[in-house]
């Protein structure tokens, strides 16, 4: 069920919008998400960075912490079609991608689109799906297309998957293989809200419900494409790029990391850092941006136990000196 309110600002077809206008859009997006998920502005920032970097998002947390709320709010704010799949072991690939049905009247096959044909797909408890179903989803995530009966069908350009998984469960789950985890841009933990936010949340819930006051779509999918293109153009100086490469190499040398960062992971890290800088209203990337998104980007890639991930990421960051004064070139 989607709200169909008008997008707030749509730039005219003539001149491209300036950075200031884009930042306004980002600000309203941010406000929409913060309204849905109270007291978690940092998580919202990370989610936005992942969205603008065209990465998919894996949220790992305990039940009831707002995973689905966040995903729904995001889908509504981005606009476009939102779909949700509750993964279970008996979920089939065709349940996600869609299937051909023989139309008796027309005497021909008719393709029924699955939930994957949407702008935002929420795959709840993805680790409960069988590997076969998971891999069907992963193809659509990396290629942004699905192939059914030798026919490839394109997905929307801004196709964005939010997958959630529950770390506490251990029975009947199929842990995502490392190679497929690489398809995700970031892995985030939401965590419990602080006391003030919980008070606020309870107070808000006790008031009469105002249906018109939910998150509204603040941008259109094509606007999202434009923002993503702008993010891709945020420049990195040579020093910062070297720093990023050194960090990537450091992950491969760390003794507790079974699987170092792949070049694809490095590309993702750069893009997410660019998005982070963009979200901060800066037109260049600083080492702060790289460090801020490191936990999310590396958490999904380095494997190992997730409890140690924070420590490992901190050690990796500490092992590489941050460039300060620009080198003489």
């Amino acid at each position, binding site marked *: 069920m989607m709200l169909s309110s008008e997008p707030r600002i749509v730039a005219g077809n003539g001149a491209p919008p300036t950075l200031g206008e884009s930042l306004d859009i980002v600000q309203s997006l941010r406000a929409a998400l913060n309204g849905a998920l109270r007291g978690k502005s940092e998580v919202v920032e990370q989610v936005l960075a992942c969205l603008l970097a065209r990465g998919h998002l894996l949220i790992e947390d305990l039940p009831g912490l707002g995973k689905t709320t966040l995903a729904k709010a995001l889908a509504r704010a981005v606009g476009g079609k939102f779909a949700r799949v509750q993964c279970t072991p008996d979920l089939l690939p065709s349940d996600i991608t869609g299937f051909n049905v023989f139309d008796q009247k027309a005497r021909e096959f008719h393709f029924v689109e699955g939930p994957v044909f949407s702008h935002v797909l929420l795959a709840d408890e993805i680790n409960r799906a069988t590997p076969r179903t998971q891999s069907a989803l992963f193809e659509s995530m990396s290629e942004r297309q699905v192939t059914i009966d030798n026919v490839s069908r394109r997905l929307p350009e801004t196709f964005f998957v939010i997958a959630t998984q529950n770390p506490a469960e251990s029975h009947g789950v199929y842990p995502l293989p490392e190679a497929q985890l690489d398809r995700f841009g970031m892995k985030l933990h939401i965590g419990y809200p602080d006391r003030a936010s919980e008070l606020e949340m309870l107070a808000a819930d006790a008031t009469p419900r105002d249906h018109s006051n939910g998150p509204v779509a603040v941008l259109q999918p094509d606007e999202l494409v434009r923002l993503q293109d702008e993010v891709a153009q945020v*420049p*990195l*100086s040579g*020093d*910062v790029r070297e720093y990023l490469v050194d960090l990537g190499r450091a992950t491969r040398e760390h003794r507790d990391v079974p699987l170092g960062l792949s070049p694809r992971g490095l590309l993702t890290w750069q893009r997410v850092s660019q998005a982070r800088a963009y979200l901060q209203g*800066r*037109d*260049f*990337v*600083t*080492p*702060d941006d790289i*460090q801020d998104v490191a936990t999310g980007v590396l958490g999904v890639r380095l494997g190992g136990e997730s409890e140690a991930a924070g420590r490992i990421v901190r050690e990796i*960051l*500490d*092992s*590489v*000196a*941050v*460039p*300060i*004064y*620009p080198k003489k070139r």
Partner: protein
Amino acid sequence: MLLCFRNLMLTLAALSCWQTCQRLAATSSMFLVVFAAALTDTRAVHVLLGVYALVGVWWLMCAYWGRLEGHLPARSRRSVPVRAVVVTVFLLLLAAAAGMSSLAGGTTTTALAGWIPSSGGTGQHDPFARAGVGDGDMLVRAQEQAESVGAVDSDLFLTSKMPSLYDMLNETFGEADNCKKHHPTEKAIGLSSDEKVLELGHEPTRSEDAGREFTTVRRRTDRRRRNLEHRLSDAVLFVAGRTPLHLRQEVFDHFDGITWSRTPALNNPLPLRMQQVGDQHWVNTLSPPDRPIFHGREVHTIKITSLATNRIPAPAHLTRASIDRVDRLDMYRRAEADIVRLDRTTIPRFTVIHLESHLPDPVRLRDVALRPLVAGPSCSVVNSLGELRSDPQGESPTLEVPSTQAQSRVRQLAESWVADVPPGWTQVEAIVSRLRTEYEFDPDARATGATDDVVGEFLFETRRGPSYLFASAAAVMLRSLGYPTRMVNGFYADPARYNSRARHTPVFADDAHFWPEVHLGRRTWVAVEPTPGYELLAPPRSWSEKMSTVLSALVIWLWAHRLALVLIACNGVAAILTRRLWLGILALGAWRLAMCVRPASALASWTVWLIERRARLAGRARPSGRTLSGWYLASAQSASPEAAQALRQLLQLGQRMFYAPHSGRKQVPESELTIVETCRAVARHWTVRRLRTCLGSA
């Protein structure tokens, strides 16, 4: 061959990143170590062997860790980086070898010995060696003389250049001034002695007995000539053993104010005895001393290279001597009561003589009951008194002093020097130490010969002179105090000349030396050394004694410089305690200079530099892995709003300076004035103290 093998091993070790090379290197190193251990039994090699065994066991453990691990209980899952450890150990060994070879001063040729055929010798050089490349300049020069070859009994021709002691003294101290020889006083005193008359009845003196006197009035020598020509080429003799060492050659006991002369001994000397110990034949000169003044046995070996003498240069209290293959007692004679000579004209060159003597302990000497003899009238000879009479075979110690006009002054001076010193050896030490400290050693000074009393002139007027003047003065003063004293000449083996490679001390003609000896009764003459710069051989000291000496010297030095040390310590402590202040001031100064000199665009980075400096001084340095904002902005929360604002602005500026692409750096939105203001505000607000409190609380 062995060197080649060693180098091969080292190369294999260097290439030990390959498994095969590593194993080969280990095997060959083991072979080398076992081989080397079999060749020698030095203790150091055994220690090295133990260390090698430890390293080897470690290596084996590392190399077979994988196999061992299966048998060990799985306590730890951490794997040992086998290859890294092995490579590191070998690299360390290699580095140590390289370091040692470079420390040893080896050239490329020696370092590569075994790889490259070379006739460059071992790289070592010893001027006294008998053979070898580049070796033995001195002896080769000496051996090339025609007269030194020949294995006959007298292997030197008459035209030998080998100097006698007489020549050497003339060369070192100048020739005797003959015009003074016929001084009336000297003649009168010389003839007045009974012994002198007796001497006339003796047969004409032979060459080795000729010139047994020494005049203290001498001509000057050309020191430059001596230094250039004779110093290096002709070592008179070599001494192996502890130095400094006084080697006796001649003894004088009669002094007339100018000339020292020898009174022939009246008593029959003690007979020499021959004793065989193993292959060696020793001639015993003294029975082992029973007196408690001696510290212990001293062993020396001397080799005479260029000295025409038949007297064995030997330290005092010589107990026995030995020359290889000389097993006949009649080869030895006594030249004096305690000087042994060979029964031939000269000791052949390169004769090696082993000497064993006893060393008096200066501390125990103080306990000897030494009574000054009661001297008669100033010019009389007192040679038999008290205990001395009970020693009929002893030398006749003499208290004779020259009857010159200055003698009474000398006597008064000596008495004033020992006025508050109890009689005994301490008085002797007092005289000697006053001479050593208050008079100046000058080998070129000469007595003028204007007076008949050289000692008086030296003591009261010139106050400087060569060793024979010191020795004469000490002898006359000690005699006037009642201590029988005689004059000895010979050689001084200077420890400064010690050749550590050849382990011996060469003695040159320059080392001809005079010193007095004091009689302690029972034929015991103990040397004293009044000449500054010369030392007597001290008993070997134990480690604890050495340590205590060093410690006491240190304490004395510390006490002497206590004020300066306390000042330095206080200043040092103050500087250390306030170092943050000083360094902070320095950093601020550098920053101010930069503010004046550098363009506005660089100011932000200079200010960041200043903040980084101050954080380091505050002990809260930014870890290299943390970003500027991540480290400093966290602390800005607890600061005042304007300080936090300034810091935030500065860091934004800095980020643009540091991380924006080159095109973006130019477009600093803030004006220059704002930048300068921000920088000043940050420098004002974020002092070391604030950084410490804020970063500490963060």
